[in-house]
Each structure stands twice: as structure tokens, then as C-alpha cells.
């Protein structure tokens, strides 16, 4: 368990953050620019003093202003990957990687070779840092932090300084970090696409406060998230299990809740778990089993909540057996179909986005 409760006043800005997340796992601190995410990261890393607070990582008390416990940053063993990478310009790539390695203390969980392999930086070792591209710089920065053998890795908008067109190249590296090294990570971002690829736990921040938190699946339907990412991007993120290839249609069968969806062929082994995103605007709701349709993916379930959104539509949450999905329909449709909690409903799925591997658990207690 990684638990943080800190307060800090900086001029007119006041940070009052509090969250708990399971370890190992990736907790995403998500919010608009200026919501206090970076300040929080600096406090957790020990680079900024909190006015009051307590930070506990697993069985280790890192900060407790009540009992005057405050481990200095250099002894916290919390690795940080900064937005601007902060590679040492007077050292080569190897020199940068070794900087943290030489100062690390046991337990050692990752070797130089493993890091080079994982991040694909073996060929860069002899280079000077100014010869690297933005993506390469960040990979080296991640490797440098990992080799200091941290107990927690903080990533402060690590993709923000990279060209938008190249950000996608770095995400798989971060995913393999999450899936192959069981190191707890805190990921700061204002880009929801990154969050839904990487996070297992989500903390929402707004104006210095943590306003909502929970596992990614539950949070994907949270009203506070809607307020930040906008109605168009709202949709359930659920865990899907690959069942295998359907020979006749050449489509991949994926179990979600008690239902099943089929997607264009992807390379994934049967039994592997994928993140499935179903946008609310891509679902059509029916109150009887639909027939004679071009849409092949239909999920059956029970309406459990109907909530109005700001745009004159209703958001219908449907329990599909162990997972929840959300559809956006007009007020008129809600009335005519008499969509109320308890009603049986079918959701027609117009499109499905797969967001990589699950990596841990998206559901609390699972």
C-alpha cells in the first residue's frame, strides 16, 4: 500500500492531497495543468517540504510531520523521471545510468543488462546525452532511475516534452516496466490516453485537491472524470479476457463481464487480459434482444443507474455481470424506452478500443 496525505501552501496555491493505492501497481495522478500534480510529486520525492503530512510506502514510514520523521530525498529511494529528463550533460549515457547504480543499496531487483534490454538502450551506451532524441532521453532517464533500485518510481509527465507523434513509441516501454518489474509507480499526466494505457489506480486532482480516486474501471465512469475529459471521451474501461480466434469469422473473441465481443484480429494469446474501452457515445441501447442488425457486438445486462449529463443526454450505466458499461442516450430515448434501474437492456457496441494489457488489476479487490 502506498499512502499519501500532505498539505502545502505556496503563495496563493494550496495543496491538500490524500490518496491510497495498492502496490505494486500504477497510480495515475490525473488532472488539468496547475492542479498540483507536480508539487505533489516533489513532496513525495523529498525535493519539497510539506507543511504537514504523512507518506507511507508498504511498511516504510517516509514522512510524518507529527513525529518528525522526514527522510531526506537522497535516502528515500524514490526514483524520479522528470518531464525534461534532466540527464547529466557532462556524462555519457553509460555514465548517467551508472550514476544511480553506484549509489544504490540492496535489495537489487534489476541489473544494467536487464534495464538496457527492457528499454532498448543497449546501443546508446557510448553516446553523449545531447546526441539523443527526446524519446531516447526519456528512456535513459527511466533506466537511470530504475538502476538506483528505487522502491517507488515517480514519473512526472514523462511524455510531455516529446513530440506528440512519437509519444506512442514510448508507451510500450512503460507498459513493460509495469508488467515485468513489480515496482510500484506513480504516473503524473494530463493526457487521459496515457492514463488509460498505464494506470491501474486513478487519483483525480483539481485545484490542489484530490477529488476522487479508485481503481481504473470504477473511475472510468466517475462524474468527476467526465468533468475533466469531456463527454466525448467518457466510456467504461474494463478487463477483457481473450477467448481465442473464431475460425469462421477470423475475429478475436474477448469475454467482458458475462458477455462477449469480437474484434478484428489482434495478436494475443488465449487467456491474456486486455484493457477494453467502450466509449459511451459508441453504445446504442435496446430494451429487447436486437435482431437483424449489422452491429455484431451486443452486451446484455441490467440498467443500474441513469444520470443526466450536462449536454442534454442521459448516461445509462449497465451491469453486464461483473463489469459496468456506460451508454449515452438522449432524454427522449430514456423516457420512451423507460430506462430505469432494474430494467433489462442490450447495449449494441459500434466500436471497441483495445488499450493494451491489463497489467495488474483494474478492479479493486480482484
Amino acid at each position, binding site marked *: 500500500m502506498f499512502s499519501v496525505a500532505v498539505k502545502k501552501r505556496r503563495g496563493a496555491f494550496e495543496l491538500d492531497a490524500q490518496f491510497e493505492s495498492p502496490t505494486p501497481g500504477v497510480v495515475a495522478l490525473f488532472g488539468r495543468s496547475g492542479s498540483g500534480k507536480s508539487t505533489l510529486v516533489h513532496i513525495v*520525492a*523529498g*525535493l519539497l517540504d510539506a507543511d504537514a503530512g504523512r507518506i507511507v510506502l508498504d511498511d516504510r514510514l517516509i514522512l510524518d510531520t507529527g513525529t518528525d520523521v522526514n527522510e531526506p*530525498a*537522497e*535516502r*528515500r*529511494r*524514490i*526514483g*524520479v523521471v*522528470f518531464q*525534461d529528463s*534532466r540527464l*547529466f*550533460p*557532462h556524462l555519457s549515457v553509460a555514465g548517467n545510468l551508472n*550514476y*544511480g547504480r553506484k*549509489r*544504490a*543499496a540492496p535489495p537489487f531487483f534489476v541489473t544494467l543488462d536487464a534495464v538496457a534490454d527492457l528499454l532498448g538502450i543497449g546501443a546508446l551506451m557510448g553516446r*553523449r*546525452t*545531447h*546526441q539523443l532524441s527526446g524519446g531516447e532521453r526519456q528512456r535513459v532517464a527511466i533506466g*537511470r*532511475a530504475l538502476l*538506483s533500485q528505487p522502491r517507488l518510481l515517480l514519473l512526472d509527465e514523462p511524455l510531455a516534452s516529446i513530440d506528440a507523434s512519437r509519444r506512442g513509441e514510448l508507451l510500450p516501454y512503460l507498459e513493460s516496466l509495469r508488467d515485468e518489474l513489480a515496482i510500484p509507480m506513480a504516473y503524473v499526466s494530463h493526457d487521459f490516453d496515457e492514463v488509460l494505457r498505464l494506470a491501474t489506480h486513478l487519483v483525480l486532482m483539481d485545484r490542489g485537491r484530490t477529488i476522487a480516486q479508485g481503481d481504473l474501471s470504477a473511475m472510468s465512469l466517475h462524474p468527476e472524470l467526465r468533468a475533466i475529459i469531456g463527454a466525448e471521451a467518457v466510456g467504461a474501461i474494463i478487463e477483457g479476457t481473450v477467448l481465442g480466434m473464431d475460425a469462421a469469422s477470423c475475429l478475436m473473441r474477448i469475454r467482458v463481464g458475462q458477455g462477449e465481443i469480437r474484434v478484428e484480429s489482434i495478436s494475443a494469446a488465449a487467456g491474456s487480459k486486455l484493457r477494453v474501452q467502450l466509449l459511451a457515445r459508441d453504445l446504442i441501447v435496446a430494451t429487447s434482444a436486437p435482431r437483424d442488425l449489422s452491429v455484431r457486438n451486443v452486451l446484455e445486462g441490467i440498467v443500474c443507474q441513469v444520470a443526466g449529463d450536462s449536454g442534454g443526454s442521459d448516461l445509462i450505466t449497465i451491469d453486464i455481470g461483473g463489469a459496468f458499461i456506460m451508454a449515452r442516450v438522449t432524454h427522449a430515448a430514456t423516457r420512451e424506452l423507460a430506462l430505469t434501474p432494474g430494467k433489462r437492456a442490450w447495449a449494441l457496441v459500434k466500436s471497441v478500443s483495445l488499450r493494451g494489457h491489463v497489467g495488474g488489476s483494474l478492479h479493486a479487490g480482484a
Partner: protein
Amino acid sequence: MTMWPSADESQALQLSLSVALRSVLFSLPVALSVAWLLTRRRFLGRTLLDAFVHLPLVLPPVMVGYVLLLLLGSRGPIGGWLQNEFGIHLIFTRNGAAVATAVMSFPLMVRAMRLSLETVERGLEEAARTLGAGAIDRFATITLPLMLPGLLAGAVTAFSAALGEFGAVITFVSNIPGETRTLPLALYTALQTPGGEPAAARLALMSFGLGMGGLLLSEWFARRVRRLLGR
């Protein structure tokens, strides 16, 4: 007129180099500490210290020499203590000349170091900290190497300036051949001597060569290090 310097003149040259080198060695650690204090620390009297450091730039060198004489002379509070406790004589010695030139070139050195210290990104020191480096470790492995270009440029400039110091030296340690008669003092003495013009010309030429060489060397070095850092 022969171009070849006499034994006395080459002695003056050697002495100048020796005094300037000592002067830089004396002032380097002090200047580094003062530059660090002025750049990185906020404390009471910081502005006062800043002004004090710059005093030698605006005071008459002769006055600086006189103050040194009062403080570091055999009967001065510091000079007396040094003599009694450690047997160190500054007055009328080349070490005294080095102290006088160190004081005079101190502002140049501090200025160069402050400028280079300000270019060192604090973020890099923070990164080193999260990687497990304590304060001294960080300074030695990150801050110092990154400010090296400025540090060396400052040292070379101070060295060149030290070669030319006249007023403070002649006031504090007098004009003793072979001990405190550096190039500018020898040049002055030659001009005061009937028929000394050829010697004065040779000494002037030497001074010119040394100063020019020092400045070029400093520029070349700064460029090299900048390229190494990829800037």
C-alpha cells in the same frame, strides 16, 4: 638593442608567473565558497558581502596595499599571529605579493564563478539527489564539473590580471629584486633608470605576450569544454 632579455628580466618574468600562480591557488577555494554563498544562499548581509567582494575594483590599489600592510604586516593583527604561530612571513616576500594580487583579482574570479554557477541547472542537482547523492557528493560530481568552464575561465583571467598588478604589490611588499620585483615593477624600475628604455620595451613586450596568451588560452579552453557538454 637586443631582443634577448637579461638575467634580471627573465627572473622578473619567472617571479611574475610564480606569484600569479600562487595568487590563483590562494583565491580559488575562497572565491568558490564566496560565489556559492552569494548564488545559493539567502542570508543577512548578503548584499554587504557582495559589495565588499567588489571593493578592490573601485579602490585605489595603493590603498588596498596599505590596508594589507596594516593587517598582515609584522605588527598587524593577522600578520603578527601568522608570524608567531606558524612562522609565516608575508611582508617583503613573494607569498605576500601573491596575497596582494589575489585580493586585487578576487572580484574577477568571484564574478566568473557566480556566472557559471548560475548556469548550472538546479534540476540536475535535484535529479542527482533522487539518485542517492548527498550534498558533498552532488557538488563534486554534478555542480563542480558543470561549472568547470567558468571556473577555469575565471582562473585564467585572474592569473592574467595577477601578472599585471602593480600598486598593491609595491605598497605591501615593496620592490625587491628576485623576491617581489614582478614584471610591472621591473618595467617601472627600468623606466626610472637612465638608459633603461630598451629593457622597458622588452618587459612591456613580455607582459603583452603573457596577457594575450592567457586570454586566448582561456577562450580556447572554454570552447573545448562547451563542445564536450554539447552546448
